[in-house]
């Protein structure tokens, strides 16, 4: 059983966590072409090497990110999502913005 270190709760058995998939930025859904969108949704990089992944500590529902080497299964570091997402994200419609 691997140990994963939650930035909030410290080192815990990995069975306390839920895997949330690879982390990658969403392309602009209103401007990106169909192919790029399909790749975003359906394709995974599945890279051999260091990848960034979403993990959630189930007991505290705390989401964070982990850098993991998929070749050695070594977790290099874990960090809070706010390190990447540090400001509010807004979406604007491609053509007209809904007046609400």
């Amino acid at each position: 059983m691997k140990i994963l270190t939650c930035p909030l709760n410290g080192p815990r058995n990995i069975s306390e966590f839920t895997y949330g998939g690879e982390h990658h930025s969403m392309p602009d859904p209103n401007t990106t072409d169909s192919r790029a969108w399909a790749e975003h949704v359906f394709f995974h990089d599945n890279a051999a090497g260091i990848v960034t992944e979403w993990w959630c500590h189930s007991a505290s529902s705390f989401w964070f990110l982990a850098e993991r080497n998929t070749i050695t299964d070594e977790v290099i570091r874990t960090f809070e999502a706010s390190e990447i997402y540090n400001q509010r994200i807004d979406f604007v419609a491609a053509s007209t913005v809904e007046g609400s």
Partner: protein
Amino acid sequence: MNPRLPAPYGSLINRDAPLDFSFERKSYQGFAGDSIASALAANRHWLLSRSFKYHRPRGALTMAGQDANTMVQLPSNPNALADRELISHKLDVMGQNYSGSLRTDRGALLGLFSRFLPVGFYYKAFFKPRGIWEKWAPLIRKKAGLGVIDQQLQPDYYDKQYKFFDVVVVGAGPAGMQAALESAVEGCEVLLVDENPILGGSLNYTRFDAEGVRGRQLREQLTKKIAANSNITCMTDAVCNAWFADNWLPIIRHKRLYKVRAKQTILCTGALEQQAVFHNNDLPGVMMSSAAQRLIHLYAVRPGQAAVIVTGNNDGYANALDLLDAGVEVKVIVDLREAPSQSAMIDAVVARGIRIETGYAVYEAQKARNHLSAVQIRKITSPGICADSGEVISCDLLCMAVGYTPTYQLVCQAGGQLSYDDDSAIFTLSNCPAVMQIAGSVNSHWDLDACLAEASRAAIIATNALGLSHTEEPAQIARESVSPNHPWPIFAHSGGKEFVDYDEDLTIADIINATRDGYEHIQLVKRYSTCGMGPSQGRHSALAAARLVAAATNRTVAKTGVTTARPPFAPEHLGHSAGRSFYPARRSNMHYRHLEAGAQMLQAGAWYRPAFYGSANNSQQCINQEVSNVRNNVGLVDVSTLGGIEVRGADAAEFLNRFYTFGFVKQPVGKARYALLTNEGGVVIDDGVACRFSDDHYYVTATTGGVDRVYQSMLKWNAQWRLDIDIANVTSAYCGVNIAGPRARQVLAKLCTDVDLSAESFPYMGVRQGTVSGIAARLIRVGFVGELGYEIHVPQHCGEALWDALMEAGQEQGIRPFGIEAQRVLRLEKGHIIIGQDTDAMSNPMEVQMGWAVSRKKPFFVGGRTISELEKKRQLRSLVGFVINDPRAPIPKESHLVLEGEQMTGRVTSCNYSPTLQKPIGLAYVNLENTQPGSRIIIKSTGGVRITAEVVPLPFYDPDALRQEL
């Protein structure tokens, strides 16, 4: 019982506690502490089992629980290891795998046909002609497997426990004991684990000096120090059965599985003695030299009367001294080496006048009455080849001392690499992770002082790494240049039967033929021949097989390698995996009210829910009555399991707008709105209603099974969006009921006076906060079952009180509880889908007729872009309603196929008899040609009967929605 050797022989037995037990229905006596095998050996009974394939007689091989020869049947379980399992009062032990009796097994005739059972037999024999396997299968199945399972047995209580240590030392031989002592620096919690009943490992039975005193002395010294050290916890009789990531060690002791987390692991797992490979090397009476020494020292049992020793190292000479001291005649030491190195041990043997033949091999063993009766020794002419004739020497014991393999299993599971030097026949282990050290004979150290020094060094490295010591790391300990491993103790015989793998009855020819059949890789040889796949998992076959494959394919053993040693190291009882485990069952606050009302409960996910109320023999009638009562009077259903999520804050509406498919920004306060959730792939994954209690407060419901995922998903999205909201899963904090039926308002009005319940002021899809029977409640007018209805959500602790109040208030109106079976029928009549039942991993909103619940005017929502892509493509299927008009047609079940000719074009997702429509109704995916009302579809129903169903518009019931909006 024959007299045992005097003390101090017999360190494991208690001579004051004799025990009676039986083997093969015959009574025997042993002592407390005896294993089944040692107690039988003390009675000069050696035959323990019959081999798997040829039913050959087998006896003790290792006396260490490392081979499959000793597998016996106990009343509680098959395949108990007779050399590990202790005897107990009146224990009833039987042999296994024979027909007739263990002594005269008719199955042994199979051995005569061995040349018709070549390696790869199964693959070859049953491959052609087609269909032949079906003929053979029953016979093979009958022969396959070992032992008998008592299907009436009440399982014992097995459980698990976590443990935490700074250093775990596996193996309590000299190296392990020393490593534990050296690790036990201040602040270091050390666990010392050993599979044997006492500490000491080889110190208990190996002769380290010609006088035979050093082992015992050292053991006493180390044991005393360990007992006095409060930092060391000892676990004996405990097997560390694997190594998993980050030093996670499953240690099995009796009926408990310890899940041990170590910061550092020191493996002192020792080495396993290997057999010589020659004709009839499997006879009872042929055993490892260490097995004979265990019998003598641990159990005070003389392993035979007249012994021959075949050796490739000096340990065979130590063995001879032990045998002599125990009163066993040693007829000859057959040394495979032409010129043994000088040693005090050999000098001592010579001094006692024992015959020694160097450059000789045991060519064959001979049998009388299921036991070794003599050996034929021959001069070795070149490696593996003997002279044409030899000398026959009668004996009843043959001890084999030709080398060892390190007990490398756990090391390799941790990523360690096993290497072998073809010249010196020495194994080495490298590439261990930083959290693991190894010491002792597992690391090919044989000299006792070297083992101790290396153990100290490993411990220093471990405690330094933990920051608990700052000792200078000692230099690496040099290995001896002479290995105890003879490079080729393998002697082919014209009559075959030189066993490489005892478990699977594989001989030299079998391994070589596997390579000739084209399976040259060691992993392929294993799978083709089954070598190493038996209960002892190649512990005694891996090395011999590797040597044979190497020779047959002109490679070195180093290049050939050995097969992967996966967990578990030793066989484990299913109880350890299947024993006590936790499935957190969830109960609503009204749980006991359902039981009192006679509900049949079922588990929906983790939740207990009432299926229906009444007798299980009468389920359909109960369900129909519950349905009718909702349609005509009023019913009450517990919806506490429904998910509830609070979304609060300035951006609450904006968040829901992004998360769900519908538009929420303009949703008025006091209203609920259907909330359909799709994932990024546009697939429908959950639904509920979003109730807006104020501008910045939504209470969103989610499906029972989906809420945890929905909640996590909300948090994950907002970890990115960073909207000004708080999301809280309050599923369990609220209990809920749905009171539904034309008389629902009448009942509720009696208990709820602070909310105007009239249709005008509290219409369908309205939400209010008020009190019901004095309990603060959230009221939601929903129509899941298609009648006038109110969901009433109250704080969890008030559930029982709410239920009681409503049941009492509704008496006059004929209120009855209804279960989820009735609810399923009611919602189906209304054409409402259940996510997960009527949808699958591909269902998009358009396919399930939910296009209306998707806003196309929003800048963004999860799944939105994919849905717009899907809308550009041709839709492939659609969920439609159907009725079955033929009253004789068997009612289809979920997942029954919709066919066109032989072509599958869809499937049924829901189907029930509708008491309201008085015919079966259902939902099915069909292709787009069949979506029009009036279309006929063919369903392959129960029993394979093809029935015709008619596609009808949805909903089946109350299409104008007059009733729910009353």
